C-alpha cells in the first residue's frame, strides 16, 4: 500500500513539474468594475483564452480604482509588476517615459494590429514620442447630457435645444429653482472634473496643449469656454468645489437635477431607475460640433515581464473583434466590436458612435497628472470668480514651467 502511494505521488510530482515547465502563468491586473460586477465576464474571457492557448494560464487581479494607480506604481518600483495590465489613458505617458512598459510597435506590426481597428482618439492616447505603448481596450466619452424628460416637459423646454451653448444656458436657468438645479456641473479634485470640463474647451475648438507641447489654455477658444462654464455655475448644485460626477448622479436620480454630464456608461444605471430619460450628444457654440473628451483604458505589457510573447497573445485576444465587446463595460475600443456592443447594450448607438468618432483625447504627457492638477485648480479658480483669462494665464505659467 505504502509503495503504491509512493509511486503514485512521485508520478504526480513528475507529471506536475512537467506541466509546470510548459505552463506559463500571466499576471493580469485590471480595474475593478464596481458598476457592473464585470468580473464574471473577465473570468469567462480568461477561460476562453486559456482554451485557445492551453499552455498559458492567466491570473486576474482586479483592483478598485482609488488604489489602482498607487498599486501599479509601488509594484513597478518594487520590482513585482504584473505581466499585463490595463492602464488608464492618462497614465500612459508617465509609464512610457519611465521605461517600465514595452513599446509595442514591432509586435503590433507583425500581428497586423493597426490604427484603423480602433477609434482614432483611443489610438492617439496610446502613442507617445512616436511609439506605440499600449493597445486600446475600452473607451468612453465625456460627456453626454442625460436629461430628465419630466422636468423638461414641465418647464416646457425642448431638450434638444440644449445642444447649443445658448440653449443649454437658457434651459439650465429655467430649470433651476425650488431646490432643483438645471445642470450638473462639478469641480471637485478628481479626473472626472477635468475630462468633463475639457469637452467644453474642445467643443469650442480649444486645446489643452498645442502641437509643440506648450500650454494652449490661455488662448481665446479655451478662455471663451471658461467664461461660458462660469456663466453656467449659478445653475449648478451648491458645493461645486467638492462635488464630483457621483454626487451629480445621486441628485439626478432623485429628481433634483434636470441634466447630468456623464459618459455612455451611465445608461445601465438609468435603465434601472424609474426615470424617464434621454440624452443629448454634448454641447457646442452655435455652428460648431460638440467634441467630447476621451476616457478609457489601454492594455500594456510591463518591461519586467518574463512572458512578453504570451502577454502579447493575451492582449491580441482581448482586443479582438469577437472578444472585445464581451470583456468591457465601457465601450470596446475595437470599432467593429463597438458597433455590435452599442447596438446590443445602449440606447441611441448611432449617436454614441458619432460622438466617439469626433472625440479628442486628453494630452498624452508623462506629466499629465500634474497638468490635470493644474487644470482642476484653474477650473476651481474660475468657479470662485477669478477672471477666466487670469486663471488660464496662471495655469499656463504653471504648465509651461513643468518643462
Amino acid at each position, binding site marked *: 500500500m505504502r509503495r503504491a502511494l509512493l509511486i503514485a505521488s512521485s508520478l504526480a510530482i513528475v507529471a506536475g513539474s512537467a506541466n509546470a515547465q510548459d505552463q506559463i502563468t500571466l499576471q493580469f491586473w485590471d480595474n475593478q468594475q464596481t458598476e457592473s460586477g464585470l468580473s464574471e465576464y473577465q473570468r469567462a474571457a480568461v477561460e476562453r483564452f486559456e482554451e485557445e492557448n492551453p499552455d498559458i494560464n492567466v491570473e486576474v487581479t482586479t483592483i478598485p480604482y482609488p488604489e489602482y494607480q498607487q498599486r501599479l506604481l509601488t509594484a513597478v*518600483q518594487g520590482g513585482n509588476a504584473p505581466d499585463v495590465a490595463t492602464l488608464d489613458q492618462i497614465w500612459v505617458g508617465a509609464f512610457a517615459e519611465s521605461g517600465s512598459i514595452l513599446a509595442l510597435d514591432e509586435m503590433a506590426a507583425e500581428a497586423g494590429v493597426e490604427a484603423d481597428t480602433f477609434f482614432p482618439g483611443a489610438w492617439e492616447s496610446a502613442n507617445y514620442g512616436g511609439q506605440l505603448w499600449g493597445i486600446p481596450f475600452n473607451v468612453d466619452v465625456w460627456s453626454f447630457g442625460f436629461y430628465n424628460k419630466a422636468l423638461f416637459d414641465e418647464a416646457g423646454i425642448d431638450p434638444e435645444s440644449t445642444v447649443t451653448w445658448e440653449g443649454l444656458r437658457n434651459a439650465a436657468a429655467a430649470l433651476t429653482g425650488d431646490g432643483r438645479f438645471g445642470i450638473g456641473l462639478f469641480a471637485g479634485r478628481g479626473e472626472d472634473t477635468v475630462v468633463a470640463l475639457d469637452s467644453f474647451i474642445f467643443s469650442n475648438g480649444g486645446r489643452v496643449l498645442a502641437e509643440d507641447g506648450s500650454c494652449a489654455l490661455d488662448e481665446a477658444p479655451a478662455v471663451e469656454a471658461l467664461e461660458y462654464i462660469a456663466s453656467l455655475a449659478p445653475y449648478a448644485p451648491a458645493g461645486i468645489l467638492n462635488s464630483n460626477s*457621483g454626487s451629480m448622479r445621486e441628485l439626478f436620480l432623485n429628481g433634483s437635477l434636470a441634466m447630468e454630464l456623464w459618459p455612455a456608461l451611465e445608461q445601465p444605471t438609468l435603465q434601472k*431607475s424609474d426615470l424617464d430619460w434621454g440624452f443629448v450628444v454634448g454641447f457646442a457654440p452655435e455652428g460648431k460640433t460638440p467634441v467630447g473628451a476621451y476616457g478609457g483604458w489601454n492594455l500594456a505589457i510591463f518591461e519586467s515581464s518574463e512572458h512578453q510573447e504570451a502577454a502579447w497573445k493575451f492582449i491580441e485576444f482581448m482586443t479582438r473583434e469577437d472578444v472585445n465587446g464581451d470583456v468591457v463595460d465601457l465601450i470596446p475600443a475595437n470599432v467593429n466590436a463597438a458597433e455590435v456592443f452599442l447596438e446590443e447594450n445602449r440606447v441611441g448607438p448611432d449617436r454614441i458612435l458619432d460622438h466617439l468618432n469626433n472625440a479628442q483625447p486628453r494630452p498624452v504627457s508623462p506629466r499629465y497628472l500634474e497638468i490635470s492638477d493644474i487644470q482642476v485648480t484653474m477650473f476651481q479658480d474660475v468657479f470662485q470668480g477669478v477672471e477666466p483669462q487670469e486663471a488660464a494665464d496662471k495655469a499656463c505659467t504653471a504648465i509651461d514651467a513643468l518643462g
Partner: protein
Amino acid sequence: MSRGSKRTQRVWLAALQLAVALLILVPFFWMVSVSLKPGTEPFAIPARLWPQNPTLENYVTAFRPEFQTYFLNSLIVSGATVLITVTLALLAAYVFSRAQMRLVSIVMGLVILAQMFPASAIIIPMYKIMREANLLNTYAALIIAYVTVTLPVAIWMLRGFFARLPITLEEAAEMDGAGPMRTFVEIILPLSKPGVVATAVYVLIVTWQEFLFALSFTSTREMRTLPVGINDFIGQYGIRYGELMASSVLISMPVIAVFFLLQRYFVAGLTAGAVKG
C-alpha cells in the same frame, strides 16, 4: 445649596448627558439607516432618517466571500500584532522604568520619539525593504510593520504603568533569593494585567482600522484586510453608499464588541498607566 436648585442642577446635567449621547450616536444611527436603504431607492432631499423600504440586501452584498477572507486576514494580522507588540513592549517598558543606565534611556527615548514620523513619508522605503525581504503579500509584512509603528506608544503606555509599581516589590523578591527573570515572571507580570489589557485594546483598535500600510504592502485579493476592502465600493465615478455603510457596520462590530467586553479593564489600565505617567 437648597434642595430645589440642586435638583435643577441635576436635571441640567442629565440633559447634558443626553446631549452628549445623541452627539455620539446620531452619526451611527445614520450609518445604519443608509445601510438599510435599497440601491434602487434614490437618496431623498431632505434626508430621510429612515429609508422608505428598508432592506438587508446591502448586508448580503457586503458579506460576500471576499469579506470572509478580508475578515480572516484582519483577524490574523491584528491578533498577531497585539500579541507581539504587547510582549515586546512589556519587556522594553519594564526595563526602561527600572534601568538606571543613561544609554538605555536614550535608546528608549528614541524609540518613543519615533511615533512622530509620518507614515506617508516612510512608507516607500519601508515598501522597498519588504520587497527585498520577499515579504510582500504576506501576513509577515503587515504584522512587522504594525508591530513597529505601535511599539512606541505601547512602550510609553506601559512605562508609565511600571513607573507606578514600587521598586520595593523587586527588592523584596531579591532578598528572598529570586533571580530577575523569576521576579519578572512571577511578580511583575501578574500585577501588570490592567496595563496589558489597556495596551492590547489600544493596539487592537488601531491596527484593525489601519489603511495605508495594508493598502501598500498587499496587492492580491487574498491578502486584503477589511479597511482596504472598503475600496471595493468606491468606483471610478461614484460611491455605493448603501453597501459601503453596510460593510462599515460589519467591520466595526467586532472591535465595538471587544471594546464593550473589555472596557472596564481598558479604563482601569489607563488609570494605572497614563495617570501617573
